[in-house]
């Protein structure tokens, strides 16, 4: 177990190195640079800025410096917001994104799993049909359609909830709903499929034969294996939901992390982009590791290798 974790952590290093290098090369190849604006910055000022951030040195030197800094999780100051370290920007944004994503995932699991279980237990009956209708519709309505519709109905017409911002508890409701609906739907589908498969297996039949109630069978035996697909989905989903809720952040003015990925790349804010990409990659890999560990816990048939 310990050796497994250690090995996986060590394997992350070369992967992260490749990602860092790839990102570095790609952003540097992109046309334009960080100090461009509609109004030309005076030549002397621009030269000074390039010098200040070491951008006037040969590219390979910059690369070595960057790798050394990245290894210490220190990407230097953002070019766009020079009084802040990229690290500070990332952590502040991450705190908000993690809260938004955490709520959304919680909602997704709390609603999605029971929906899937009920659908599986009532296969081909009305409840199944209703749950799967919702699930398919939820997957099919993009959140940038859903978000504005929710605002239109609940904020602008009914005046029940704030139209945006991340301040009061009430302001969290709409972005969390808009973000989680797709995930609720998808988790419901996964749970249903997983449960259907498990419910046909021998040990479940045995449990039934022993006279357990259907509820007892599901809660006591089947659920643990039936939600395995959900568990393996949760890793990448958590990474995406935390890092990639760009649309929701924009519609609801949530000061999260996702925007920096886009804004950083578009502004050629090299340090910020490299920081976000590496942060995302490391976060995703860590989550996948956690998922694998959880998987092993839930399914005794799986061995860690």
């Amino acid at each position: 177990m310990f050796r497994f974790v250690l090995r996986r952590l060590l394997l992350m290093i070369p992967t992260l190195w490749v990602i860092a290098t790839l990102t570095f090369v790609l952003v540097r190849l992109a046309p334009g640079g960080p100090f461009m604006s509609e109004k030309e910055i005076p030549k002397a000022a621009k030269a000074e800025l390039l010098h200040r951030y070491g951008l006037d040195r040969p590219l390979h030197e910059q690369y070595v410096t960057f790798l050394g800094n990245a290894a210490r999780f220190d990407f230097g100051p953002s070019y766009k917001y020079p009084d802040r370290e990229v690290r500070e920007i990332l952590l502040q944004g991450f705190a908000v994104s993690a809260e938004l994503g955490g709520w959304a995932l919680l909602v997704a699991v709390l609603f999605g799993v029971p929906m899937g279980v009920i659908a599986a237990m009532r296969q081909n009956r009305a409840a199944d049909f209703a749950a799967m209708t919702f699930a398919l519709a939820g997957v099919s309505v993009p959140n940038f359609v859903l978000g504005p519709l929710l605002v239109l109905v609940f904020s602008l017409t009914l005046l029940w909830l704030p139209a945006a911002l991340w301040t009061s508890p009430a302001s969290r409701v709409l972005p969390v709903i808009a973000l989680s609906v797709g995930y609720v739907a998808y988790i419901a589908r996964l749970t249903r499929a997983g449960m259907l498969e498990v419910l046909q297996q021998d040990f479940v039949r045995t449990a039934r034969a022993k006279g357990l109630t259907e509820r007892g069978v599901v809660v006591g035996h089947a659920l643990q294996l039936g939600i395995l697909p959900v568990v393996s989905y949760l890793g990448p989903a958590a990474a995406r939901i935390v890092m990639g809720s760009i649309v929701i952040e924009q519609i609801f003015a949530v000061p999260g992390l996702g925007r920096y990925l886009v804004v950083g790349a578009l502004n050629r804010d090299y340090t910020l982009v490299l920081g976000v990409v590496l942060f995302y990659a490391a976060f995703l890999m860590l989550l996948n590791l956690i998922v694998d560990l959880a998987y092993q816990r839930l399914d005794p048939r799986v061995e860690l290798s």
Partner: protein
Amino acid sequence: MSIGIAPPGSVVAAPRPARSLWSDAWRRLRRNRMAVAAGWFLGALALTAALAPWLPGLADPTTQDLAKGATAPSLQHAFGTDELGRDLFSRVLHGGRISLLVGLVGTLVSLIIGVTWGAIAGYVGGKVDDLMMRVVDVLYALPYIFLVILLLVFFSKSLVMLFVALGLVQWLTMARIVRGQVLSLKHQTFVEAARALGASDAAILFRHIVPNTLGPVIVYTTLTVPAVILQEAFLSFLGLGVQPPNASWGTLVSDGARAIALFPWLVVFPGLAMSLTLLAFNFLGDGLRDALDPKGRRDSH
């Protein structure tokens, strides 16, 4: 923003499907009324969209009438008009052309790369497999929106680039699925038999093994099309999608979403068209999965 596609584990390996298995699957699919309806819907939609430029009585989607901008749905304009006075019904149909094209071509790109990559990795195995899968891991860990932005920054934003960009970020899961299939198939007796008969590796892989992975590939492909359509719409929301005067459902929806308090029809109709299409693809994909995967089929107990 995208909701993930079925994880590799959820597509259960089809054992070497015999001819009767395919006809079985076809029979099962035809019995699934929703999947059939979805298939008809998609067929009709694709046909209408493909023929849109030649349909009689359909307004030109680019003809502007600035004085009649943003009018609500009426008899003259079933879906209303946009800010430039263009007929929204016509724009939704023409947008469907682009969106479906983007979805299909993007999927095709991902299919070609993903199947080839996964098949080779799984078949060759060893160090090559390790390396190829590590590449997939790296690309998986890169935020795809970042990749897409850079691709679009490097290459001018032509439609072709958009296809490639979307395809390039979609092939990873396909590669994993195919690799898993190939791994489980390559030691089966029919493969050994072909090898004993002296077939070359390429022939074994692409004539004998890959055709046997078709079931999961078809299912996953059906689910990739809506995913690509969604991705394109997401890019359009960020202003990076299809460029004017072309419009996809994505650009129509995201433009409409910006005026929702005043002209809701601009988001409702393209959004509806897009959602229904995605829904149909998902129904079809589900139906195919049920049909091609006897274990999970609906009439199994």
